[in-house]
């Protein structure tokens, strides 16, 4: 019996250790570069002889011509992600409420069109979206990226919120109506409080999507003062003389906020975003 238990644990470790190495190696490598002095970064060491925070100091002080706008670009990423998250949340909540609770005419069609949009491969829409933003005259304006991210994030958000709101008992709506509540009172006083966990999930989803986006960001924005940190990292790469250790340090700093946000809202994310999928 005890022998069998040992075998089970050994088998679990046999999966767990490769999973750990596979998952963490690229991230560890990022960290390794960030704490290595310039000369040591490229030596293929698993740990630097003299770990240093100098790279972080250089990045924070914007002390390199690739980093002149580091803080501004970090701020751009933040503004765009928060704006896309909030706008997505507002649009998707309204739509889900109208479709699921108010049973608005055409709601089913709207849901289907949203789903259809969700199933367009993201890169397929990128070039037409780029051309369209040109037609609308908002290319190189941060609104173009915010609106593109809202367009991409709303369909799944509406679907997740609709799934969640279909589960709320209809007696609630009826009781509110009997008491003479207006649609808006129902929305603000009954619907929103009950939907809070799903709303957090959807808002976080849209925010992370926008913060992490590269393709649309690099198509729609170009000025050094407008771009997000992700696009700036891509530009870094185009040059031959890039300081790799600073590039990796900046990359690590760019990856930290979404990781922190994910862990903060993890319990909402996992339940909220997978609940709908399992149903099918």
């Amino acid at each position, binding site marked *: 019996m005890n022998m069998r238990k040992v075998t089970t644990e050994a088998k679990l470790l046999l999966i767990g250790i490769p999973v750990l190495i596979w998952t963490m190696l690229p991230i560890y490598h990022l960290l390794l570069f960030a704490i290595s002095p310039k000369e040591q970064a490229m030596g293929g060491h698993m740990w630097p002889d003299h770990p240093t925070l100098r790279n972080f100091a250089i990045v924070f002080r914007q002390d390199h011509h690739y980093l002149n706008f580091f803080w501004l670009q970090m701020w751009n990423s933040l503004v765009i992600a928060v704006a896309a998250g909030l706008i997505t949340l507002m649009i998707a909540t309204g739509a889900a409420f109208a479709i699921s609770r108010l049973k608005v005419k055409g709601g089913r069609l709207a849901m289907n069109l949203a789903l259809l949009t969700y199933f367009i491969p993201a890169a397929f829409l990128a070039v037409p979206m780029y051309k369209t933003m040109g037609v609308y005259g908002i290319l190189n304006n941060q609104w173009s990226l915010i609106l593109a991210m809202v367009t991409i994030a709303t369909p799944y958000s509406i679907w997740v919120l609709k799934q969640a709101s279909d589960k709320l008992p209809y007696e609630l709506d009826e009781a509110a109506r009997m008491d003479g509540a207006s649609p808006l009172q129902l929305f603000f006083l009954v619907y929103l409080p009950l939907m809070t966990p799903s709303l957090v999930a959807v808002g976080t989803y849209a925010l992370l999507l926008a913060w992490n986006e590269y393709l649309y960001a690099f198509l729609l924005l170009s000025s050094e003062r407008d771009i997000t940190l992700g696009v700036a990292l891509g530009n870094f790469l185009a040059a031959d003389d890039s300081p790799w250790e600073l590039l990796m340090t900046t*990359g*690590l700093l760019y990856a930290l906020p979404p990781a922190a946000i994910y862990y903060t809202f993890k319990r909402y994310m996992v339940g909220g975003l997978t609940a709908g999928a399992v149903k099918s």
Partner: protein
Amino acid sequence: MATLALPDERPAQPTGPAARKGMSPWQRWGLILLAPYALIFVIFVMYPVGYGLWLARHPVSYQKLIDDPVFLRAVFNTLAFLIIAINVKMMVALVLSGFFIVARPWIKWLSLLFILPWAVPSIPTILSIRFMLNPEWGLINSLIFRFTGADGPNWLNDPYLALGIAMLVHIWKSLPFWTLILIAGRLAIPAEHYEAASVDGATGWQKFRFITWPAMRTLYLTCTILSMIFTMGDFNSVYLLTGGGPADLTHVLATLGIRYLRLDEVDMSMAAIVIALPAVLPLMYFMMKRLSK
């Protein structure tokens, strides 16, 4: 994408004054709350899609496309991605979902780390992998040299190796998400089924074969199809790793559009997407049938 050019039916406004008078405040508020999404859809989905199809209207674009060896190579690479990378990824996700539901504190901690590739942006981690594979000073070849004394391969300069690594990058990035979904699927199976099977003396394989798989089959298929759709739109795994090189041999459809855009041949970039539609539309149709209930 053609199906997106469906007649736009924003929530239909009732016609005639009588109908308008008869609209309840509930319906009116429903239309008001739905309107912002309808606007987003018309302005940023319908119009771009229509515009894209219009750009791709010339038969000559398709002729040029067929004659372009880069296009044919990209089709081949995309198929390889869809067939190899996705099936490997989903099978690994299925196995790992079984691993992560085992109740151990250290597995719980591992599952927290495991999600990181999915939660953080692509660009820093893919660049990290790219540096790791540098033939002269990268970590991988340094380790190979230290242990074997031989020089490692020039990973990203060989089109097949580079494509293989792009697939691994794709798997690294999206494996956590699909594992999470399959974990949720496994947790939805009632525990009594497994208990009853244990009483009957079923082996682990039998439990999987007769309880887990029948319960998960539909979800697994849905995930595979959805992952195929997403993968066709996966620009980062190839572009940030190889940039389509060496010699434009590792392009996929997702990066090809940007390549033609750069060459100022937007019609080709749209034609490449239109040509892919016969493959994409059935997948989209399948997903619609499945999810729009």
